[in-house]
């Protein structure tokens, strides 16, 4: 890669990280990300106070259910929407995008820098939350049980799978929302469409299922959840044709790369005309 591009990507990163992490506007993203941490830790604290340890297997299933039905589908989804959609759209609304467009930087390099900043920010927020959720949930079981789960059980591979799914969710949803922020003026419409598309993924024909992020993410989750309530939640969680990780990971990265390439064409043609926004 051209060394100048690396310098420029790092310059964009510095600017974007500052905006992403210190923005008051993004407070709700932290709230969404760390809500499960509060719930799981609260549950453990109550159990410790009542001198009652929960069922480890049941807690593992609770985590898997919350992770798939809330964390991936809502928290990371909307967190990525808030961060990635604003990378370009937010700057147009703030009338500050020209700062980048007046620099001798390829628009594709700018897009790469912004995307990378979004990925780093979301990954840091959401993987931290994932780790804290696990720590909070298993707090009541004590270190001995937890270390046994890590060393003798599937603990390490499960945690690695959840963290991997979190990172890939940030990349997958990030690329889609970055592209949506470049193409659409109103983020609500694409967000609603993508949310519906991701929700009905399980009932779509096999080929169409592959054009979604959640399809790959579900395949990477280590525990298949089967909600007792059935109905809508069952529809969200069912995965009749799971994909092995060695296909799911490159598959999702490929979909994300394709979306980013399409977005870069759009950014290349983008004009600054704040008056019409």
């Amino acid at each position: 890669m051209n060394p100048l591009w690396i310098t420029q990507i790092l310059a964009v990163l510095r600017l974007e990280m500052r905006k992403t992490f210190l923005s008051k506007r993004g407070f709700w993203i932290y709230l969404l990300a760390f809500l499960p941490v509060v719930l799981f830790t609260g549950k453990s604290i109550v159990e410790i106070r009542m001198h009652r340890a929960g069922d480890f297997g049941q807690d593992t299933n609770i985590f898997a259910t919350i992770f798939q039905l809330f964390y991936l589908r809502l928290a990371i989804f909307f967190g990525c929407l808030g961060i990635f959609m604003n990378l370009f759209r937010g700057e147009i609304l703030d009338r500050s995008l020209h700062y980048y467009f007046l620099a001798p930087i390829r628009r594709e390099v700018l897009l790469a820098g912004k995307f990378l900043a979004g990925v780093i920010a979301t990954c840091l927020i959401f993987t931290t939350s994932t780790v804290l959720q696990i720590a909070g949930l298993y707090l009541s079981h004590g270190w001995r049980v937890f270390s046994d789960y890590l060393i003798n059980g599937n603990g390490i591979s499960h945690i690695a799978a959840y963290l991997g799914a979190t990172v890939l969710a940030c990349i997958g949803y990030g690329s889609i929302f970055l592209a949506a922020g470049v193409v659409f003026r109103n983020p609500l419409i694409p967000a609603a469409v993508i949310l519906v598309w991701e929700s009905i993924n399980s009932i779509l024909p096999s080929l169409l299922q592959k054009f979604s992020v959640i399809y790959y993410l579900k395949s990477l989750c280590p525990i298949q959840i089967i909600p007792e309530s059935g109905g809508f939640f069952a529809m969200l969680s069912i995965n009749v044709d799971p994909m092995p990780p060695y296909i799911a990971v490159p598959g999702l990265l490929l979909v994300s790369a394709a979306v980013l390439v399409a977005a870069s064409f759009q950014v290349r043609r983008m004009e600054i005309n704040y008056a019409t926004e």
Partner: protein
Amino acid sequence: MRANDRVVFENVSKFYGDVLGVNRVNLSIPPGITSLVGPNGSGKTTLMNLMTGLIRPSRGHIRVLGIRTDNPEELFRYVGYCTQFDSFPKGFTGYQFVYSYLRLYGCAHAEAEDLTWKAIERVGMTEPARRKIAGYSKGMRQRIKLAQSVCHGPSVLVLDEPLNGLDPLVRAETIALFRTLAEDGMHVIISSHILHEVDQISDQVILLSNGYVVAEGKIRGVRSEMQEHPMQILVRCNRPGVLAAKVFEQDSVVEAQIHKDGLGVLVKTRDPDKFYLLLNHIAQNGVTIESVAPADDDVNSVYEYLIGSEEAGR
């Protein structure tokens, strides 16, 4: 310096949906100070945004020093643009605003820091540079934008209403800076709707009205081509009555009016060169000429003649 030293517009039109931005613009702008003059909505900012690639033409081609405007990575090595947009990345100090731009440019930290302070010093912003831009006055914001646009030493400097909000002293310093840059061989392209301001600083003007270029060139050249409006010349002398009678003998003089203060004659002539020759002759025959000055070869008059008093006064 690049081989091609012009900013060239070839039959350029820009439409915003059904709304006309500029239409059929053909220009070849040489180095020096060029002013785009016209009332609000005449197309000045559109032309500037086109030449910096912020918008793309609906028709035609633009090249800046031979570089296509859809090639920002090369274009902005040579171009600096001080826009009219009064918004800045949130939380930035003046220093960070310029420094970060230079990092985007590709400069290493030490070089960026050095160039930043040089540019900031050049626009007289050293003292407030470490303060947040949010607390700057309009004039300070204007100057820090100017620092950002010159910090990388561009060959073409595009300035959209650069003197807006500046106090008279800073305005004079800024104009002097433009002069220095132009004398160094740079293109300084300025937009303004304040005509007398442009008159003081421009080597050439481009007059715009409703998206069309109505005249271009050196302001006096543009004026002399307007034969239907005789040139007005104010002659200060000791015997205005005698002078008025003498000049009326010349065919090309269409009007000679004693000035209100009684100390000069305002002459309207279709042939200024012939009139100046006559004036020499008169001066040798007992009339003491104190001063001779064209009264309507400034941008304001030219604009008024071309477009009409209504728009010129806007």
